């Protein structure tokens, strides 16, 4: 894996990496991916995927209001807050 590829992943995962990290991870990922690639040897089409270790279905809750956080509790951990809202930096994107 190239460090460019690692940079693309880092961008997708919103993690700023140093050049040193990019190089180091690129090397490590090659080794790790080679080691884990063996899974495809046995993952044939006739084997179903398991996403939950204990199979269950239809776990629901009733449509009833539970305790809510107060505004103060909600904002207590916020890096910045104003007017009862979380303040976040300038967003570049869609309206």
């Amino acid at each position, binding site marked *: 894996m190239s460090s460019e590829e*690692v940079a693309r*992943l*880092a*961008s*997708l*995962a*919103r*993690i*700023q*990496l140093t050049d040193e*990290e990019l190089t180091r*991870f690129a090397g*490590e*990922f090659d*080794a*790790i*991916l080679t*080691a*884990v*690639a*063996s*899974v*495809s*040897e*046995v*993952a*044939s089409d006739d*084997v*179903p*995927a*398991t*996403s*939950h*270790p*204990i199979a*269950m279905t239809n*776990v629901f*809750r009733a449509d009833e209001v539970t305790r809510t*956080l107060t505004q103060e*509790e*909600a904002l*207590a*951990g*916020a*890096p*910045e807050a104003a007017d009862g809202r*979380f303040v*976040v*930096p*300038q*967003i*570049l994107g869609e309206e």
Partner: protein
Amino acid sequence: MTDLIRKSAAEMAAGLAAGEFSARELTDAHLERIEAVDSDLNAFITVTADDARATADAVDSARAAGKQLAPLAGVPVAVKDIAVTRGVQTTAGSTMLEGWVPPYDATLVTHLKQARLPILGKTNMDEFAMGSSTETSAYGITRNPWNLDRIPGGSGGGSSAAVAGFEAPLAIGTDTGGSIRQPASVTGTVGVKPTYGSVSRYGLIAMASSLDQAGPCTRTVEDAALLHDVIGGYDPKDSTSIRDGFGDFVAAARSKDVKGLRVGVIEQLEHDDFDPLVRARFEESLALLEEAGAEIVRVSCPNFEYALGAYYLIMPSEASSNLAKFDGMRFGLRVIPEDNPTAERVMAATRGEGFGAEVKRRILLGTYALSSGYYDAYYGSAQKVRTLVQRDFAAAYEKVDVLASPTAPTVAFPLGQKVDNPMTMYLNDIATIPANLAGVPGMSLPSGLAEDGLPAGIQFLAPALGDDRLYRVGGALEALLEHKWGGPILAQAPALEGGAR
């Protein structure tokens, strides 16, 4: 005082009930021990002495008033800093959450409070539970009470070191790929990963949702059963919580009876990756069980070979998603870059600085495994391996009641030895991972001293919902081994001088 803290939790509970000592005395004794030795161990990130004393006092008053109390009321407990605690900083071992004070309690914390166990504090762990050595914590490394230059295991090294170091009789761990069992193995303690869904995950900072499971860290099998009873049970806030179907853990732990029990030895976990003395202690343990009437059977689980690969795809994939919320917008760390600090760049800077190397490594691997074009080859295939591992287990449990293997390939390795080599670190989990993939329960208990005079562990695995089988075989083996040793293994651990560092 020293005698007090060396008792088992069951003995402490009995002493409290008999009025031999008060919950306050017991709690103070542990707080004093923490004061004395935690500068050596660094098992705790946060000590909540006042809260613990308040709970202890409440227990003493309630007992004096003749009120009915839970069996472990007044027996102190330490909680891995991955379980959120209302009003008490919860860090998951990361800079990202330094100073974060949750507005709610994890369900298992609520259970501990309802049963009135004084909570001594929050224990150290690998950052976001990612590691096998507790060396990746942002709050310093935790040391092994058996040898302060050795790792205490991970990710729950803090909980196991606290229990092994007599700072707490009971602790809570979480196990995604072995984080309860492997620390137990290298610290000479007991650790149980219950059936997936047995203990609520609500309020546990998630690493890999389909693998994570909380459980007890203790010095005896009976104590583990007692603590499992407190924290387990159906929770409507966790969609994967199991409603019922469990046997009686405490009765099983006390039965000490393995006559006719069929113990399967997994051929695939008998290879040379396990150190000779670790294997020797394992074989001796099996021999003791056989003498006591158990039947030892060799079983084959051919797909376990692929379990490590599947685990190191599923775990990072789910972790990459679960850790996306740590972005500096709503809570925790926010790092503002100097030029053009848009939300996007603040998120990237925060995550670049707030996460350590291992966390970044796993998030990036997971992002890769889930990204378009790779999903089928990686995540999809890994989920199929999961099915195959489950089939191996199902086939094995047609022949045997429980499975056994050494818990970890080695005794505690020296600090710093593997932390920069992810692949060798990952191999520590080779024996513990299959249980997480299949959701089945596992227990580690001491099998004796191995290389360098350090403890090794034996692991038992049971079918889903068969946790009581673990307590039965574990309780029996523990009694046989302690009879042979002339006492608990921790009696052989060196005394901690306190303030040596």
